[in-house]
């Protein structure tokens, strides 16, 4: 091949890769455009403060679903954060030989387990024994999904803390656990927070694991042992229903949900600038 042909081929392939990068971001712009146009027109104060109206009555809101989502995210954090953060610190700080490798591998595999399967798990361990759908079951399912994400980011962030800090602490005669808790973890705080925000962004939008754990509810929450509404569930119910007004509400709900998710992702990004989020 002549040099000119080779150079031409190189330029042509470069152009193709540019084209694929552009095609890849196209859907994002399209999805955002539609969410803004269709969602914003259905948004009003009622949407954030009212309960859903019965079929046929226009208006109403999804306030209960927003509250329900927040409650379950809170539950998930109570369940998932201690295990995720402690496990992550273990992976980064431990000198054990086999267990860290196994845990790391399992966490990455769990991260890829379909969320609906996690829903079945929560159904078998919470819903069946309690004999009812509940906020507790939904929160547990979300907490399960949260653990591997928090675990892996915590590990990476704790690992980034320079060893000089550990050595300085140990050199002063401070006990190891105090070095970890008082020196290493504060140094990695921003990074750990990033992991938490990434995980929250992910579970806030999860729908599948809530279908048969939280179930959904048309009213305000009535206790953790009762079915509870969630924003993604409400969007799903509205989207597949045959009513135009509900479709409008679905778009509005999606706009609210995606705004929340992006704010969380953005906060995560701000906490550790220059590092990539998704893994």
């Amino acid at each position: 091949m002549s040099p000119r042909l080779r150079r031409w081929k190189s330029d042509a392939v470069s152009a193709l890769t540019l084209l694929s990068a552009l095609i890849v971001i196209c859907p994002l712009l399209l999805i955002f455009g539609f969410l803004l146009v269709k969602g914003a027109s259905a948004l009003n104060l009622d949407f954030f403060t009212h309960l859903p109206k019965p079929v046929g009555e226009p208006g109403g809101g999804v306030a209960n679903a927003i509250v329900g989502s927040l409650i379950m995210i809170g539950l998930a954090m109570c369940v998932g954060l201690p295990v995720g953060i402690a496990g992550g610190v273990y992976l980064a700080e431990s000198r054990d030989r086999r267990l860290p490798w196994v845990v790391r591998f399992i966490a990455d595999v769990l991260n890829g387990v379909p969320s609906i399967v996690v829903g079945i798990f929560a159904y078998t361990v919470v819903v069946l024994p309690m004999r009812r759908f509940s906020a507790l079951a939904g929160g547990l399912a979300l907490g399960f999904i949260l653990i591997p994400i928090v675990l892996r980011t915590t590990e990476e962030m704790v690992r980034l803390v320079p060893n000089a800090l550990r050595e300085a602490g140990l050199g002063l005669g401070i006990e190891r656990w105090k070095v970890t808790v008082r020196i290493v973890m504060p140094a990695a705080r921003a990074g750990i927070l990033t992991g938490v925000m990434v995980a929250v962004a992910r579970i806030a939008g999860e729908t599948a694991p809530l279908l048969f754990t939280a179930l959904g509810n048309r009213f305000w929450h009535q206790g953790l042992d009762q079915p509870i509404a969630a924003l993604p569930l409400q969007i799903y119910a509205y989207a597949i229903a045959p009513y135009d007004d509900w479709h409008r509400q679905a778009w509005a709900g999606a706009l609210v949900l995606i705004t929340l998710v992006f704010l969380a992702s953005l906060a995560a990004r701000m906490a550790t600038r220059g590092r990539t989020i998704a893994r």
Partner: protein
Amino acid sequence: MSASSSRVGAADAPLPSARMARGAGGGLGDRLFAASLRGAAWIVVLLAAGLVAALVWESKEAIGRFGLAFLYQSHWDPVTGQFGALPFVFGTIVSSILALLIAVPLSLGAAIFLAELAPGWVRPPIAFLIEMLAAVPSVVYGLWGIFVLVPWLRDWVQPALGAWLGFLPLFQGPPYGIGMLAAGVILAIMIVPYITSVSREVLLAVPGSQREAALGLGATRWETTRIAVLRYGRSGLVGAILLGLGRALGETMAVTMVIGNRPEVSLSLFAPGYTMASVIANEFTEATSELYVAALVEIGLLLLLVTIGVNGLARLLVWSVGGPTRGERE
């Protein structure tokens, strides 16, 4: 914490004593602390084991009743208690393959652009947009799929495909919009960001000396990428694609909303289908008999085992290029 400090941190020679020693040594506080951290790690292991065990336990009735026939029987009738998962397995495989066919070339192209060819200033914004795409919840993709993608496929894409390629059985039948094609396209959109960002990291983990050697021999930029970078990162790229496949196999909401949910095996991509994840999503709360629930849980178990296999393999392949953690990378 910046990328540069990460390099400094990794370059520090870790003193073995600086991190927690194994078990022995230290006071009571140290030993308690180490034990509780190890306990948290064991909880992760036990959760994974519990997940598999719970699904096996709940599906035992269906496993015992149907055995292997569950996989190749296509009759799904809750009324008579006949359960065969073939239509769902078929739908999951076809929609995932379709998604990979669309997503892989685009993702690899975008990853090569981002890691190798793009000028420095365009990389962060495009990488950021792709990460945002990964953060969009599934149900939002589904909503967009129902009201934007499906009408577009029905009115434009499917008639055109039918006119030009209608002689193939793949593109025959009435253009409903909803169906296997819509599921494949929405899945492709959803897995592109995963494949792109993991491939990009794999490419970035390829040592610079590889590129310099090829460039020094007079290779053009594309030749450098092809010979020195892609070949070096090959296994990691396969891993990235498998990660995307794992997502596609288990994706639930968006697919359920656009695939049509009809348990049929049809050659045409225009026809409605059903996937393993969507049948669980749709029928779990309505399952009245124990056998019905057990059959659905068994589908979930199959899904779990397949995704564990795919993801496990993917992780090993990705790790083979970059190492399991960034901190351990050169």
